[in-house]
C-alpha cells in the first residue's frame, strides 16, 4: 500500500534534513503508529504521503505509484485516496457538521442524495448522528475530533493518516478515538497514526515506527 524508498527531505530554508534516508513499508490493511519527539520528522513524513511536500530524494510509493512525481493536476486525485486527521481538527467553523463531513464528497461532484446517505453513515460510525446541523464550535474537543474522523472516512479512502489525533484529549477519550481507528482498520483500511503518547501506543500493541532526528530508528510491535 505505502512504501518509502530511501526518502530524504530537506526544506529549502536550509538546516538539517527533516528526513534522512527513510525506508519502510505498510502492507494493505495494516495499522501502525509513527512515534518520535517533536521535530523528529513525523509531520514531514505524513506531509510527503499527502503530497503537501515533495521528497528531496527517494520515492514515496502509494498503491505502486510514485506520488512524489505526480503532476500538479493529478495531486488532488491522489489525496482523495487518503483520509487525513489533524490534532487541531482543521474544521470549517462557519459550516455545519454536515457540511464539514460532506466536503470530500462535494468536491467529487457526487449526487446530493448519495452525499446525504454517506455523511449520515460516517457520522453514525463516529457516534455523532443527530448533530448534523450543529456548528463544530458548539461541540466538545472529542466530538470535534470525531467530525474530523468522519470527514476523513466519508469517501471510504483505502488509507487513513492521523497526525497526533489525541494530542488534546484526556486518556479515556484518547483510547476511544484509537479504538475507532481500530474499527476502521478491521474493515480493511490501512491506518498510520503519528503520536507521542507512548503508553497508549504500547497498550494498543501495534507495529511502531520510530523517528529520531529524521532517521527511522527501529520498527517494533
Amino acid at each position, binding site marked *: 500500500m505505502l512504501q518509502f524508498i530511501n526518502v530524504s527531505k530537506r526544506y529549502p530554508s536550509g538546516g538539517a534534513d527533516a528526513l534522512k534516508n527513510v525506508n519502510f513499508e505498510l502492507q494493505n490493511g495494516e495499522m501502525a503508529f509513527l512515534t518520535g519527539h517533536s521535530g523528529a520528522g513525523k509531520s514531514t513524513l505524513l506531509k510527503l504521503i499527502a503530497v503537501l511536500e515533495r521528497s528531496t530524494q527517494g520515492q514515496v510509493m502509494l498503491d505502486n505509484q510514485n506520488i512524489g512525481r505526480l503532476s500538479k*493536476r493529478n495531486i488532488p486525485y491522489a489525496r*482523495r485516496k487518503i483520509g487525513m486527521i489533524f490534532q487541531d481538527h482543521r*474544521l470549517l467553523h462557519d459550516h455545519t457538521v454536515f457540511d464539514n463531513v460532506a466536503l470530500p464528497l462535494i468536491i467529487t461532484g457526487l449526487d*446530493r442524495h448519495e452525499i446525504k446517505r454517506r455523511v449520515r453513515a460516517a457520522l453514525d460510525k463516529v457516534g455523532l448522528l443527530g448533530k448534523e446541523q450543529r456548528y463544530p464550535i458548539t461541540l466538545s474537543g472529542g466530538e470535534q475530533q470525531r467530525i474530523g474522523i468522519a470527514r476523513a472516512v466519508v469517501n471510504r479512502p483505502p488509507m487513513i493518516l492521523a497526525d497526533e489525533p489525541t494530542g488534546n484529549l484526556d486518556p479515556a477519550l484518547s483510547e476511544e478515538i484509537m479504538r475507532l481507528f481500530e474499527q476502521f482498520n478491521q474493515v480493511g483500511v490501512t491506518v498510520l497514526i503519528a503520536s507521542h503518547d507512548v503508553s497508549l501506543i504500547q497498550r494498543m500493541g501495534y507495529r511502531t515506527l520510530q523517528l529520531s532526528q529524521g532517521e527511522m530508528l527501529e520498527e517494533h510491535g
Partner: protein
Amino acid sequence: MARRRSNIQRPIRNFSVRAYLLIHLHTFFASLGRFARAPFNFMMTVSVIAITLSLPSGLLVSINNLQSLSGQIDLNNNISIFLNQSVTLKQADDLSASLQKNDKIIQSVLINKEAALKEFRQYSGFSSAITILDSNPLPHVIQITPINSINDQASLKLLVNELKQRPDIQLVQMDMGWLERLNGILNIAQRGVSIITILLGFAVLLIVSNTIRLELQHRRDEIDITRLVGATHAFVRRPFIYSGFWYGFLGGILACLLVNLSVWLIHGPTSSLATLYSSSFSLEFMPLNHALSWIAFSVFLGVTGSWIVVSRYLNELES
C-alpha cells in the same frame, strides 16, 4: 521514469453533468450569499469599479453626442461667396448665373441681402437692434455647391482661389472647414478615450485582483482544508471566479446607470440651450449595445482579474 496514471482514480465514474451543473449553481449563489453577509464591502468594490468605468464610457457618450450634433449639419460641401457692398443686385445675379455655367459647379444660389436681413431680423433675436441701423450691413451672398466636393480637394481649392481673385468678391468661405476641424478634434478625442479605456481597464483589473487577494487571505483556512481533502484547483478557484464575475457584472451595470443618470441630469439644460439655437438637438443616452459591451468588458475584467490572482496563489501553494 514513466508516470503511472492508470491507478489514479478520476471521478469520471461518479461524475454526472447534472451534479456538475448543480455545483456551479450552488457556487454561483453561494458567492452572492457571501456578498449579502458583507454588503458594505461588496458595494464599495462595485462602486469603485463603476466609477472607474463610467469615466471612459461617459466620455464616449459625450463624443457620440458631439458627432451626432455635427452630423445634423447639412453635409453638402457648400461654399459661401460674400460680395462687396458696392455690388448691385443685378451684378450679383449675373455673377451667379455665370457661376452656374461653370462645369465645376452644380448649383449656384443668390441670397439677396434684403431677404437675408429680413430673415436675420426674424431669427436672430436682434430685430430691435437692426431697426436702428441706417443701412443694410449685409452683402449679397452667392452660395455654390461644387461637384465632387469631398473627393476632389485640389480642384476645390483651385476653384476657391480663382474666385478669390475677382475684385467684386470680398470673401470666399468654405462651410465645411470648421466641421472638418471639429471631426478632427473628435477623432483625437476618440483615440484619447481608447487610451483611457485601456488604462482604466487595467485599474479595474487591479481593483478586482486586490479584492480577491484579500478574500483569499481571509478564507485561507477554508482553502487549505478543501485542498487537503482532494479538491482540484478548478474547484477552489470557482467561487472566486464567480466573485470576480459579480464584481464585474454589477460594476458594469452601475457604470452604465451612472453615465445615463449624468446624461439625464444635463439633458434638460442642453435641450433648452439647443432651442435657443433653434436646433432640435437633444442629448442621446448610451445605446443599449454600447451598454451591453461595457458590461461584458467589465465582466471580462472581473473574471480575468480573479482568475490571475487565484491561479497564482494556488500555484504557489502546490510545489
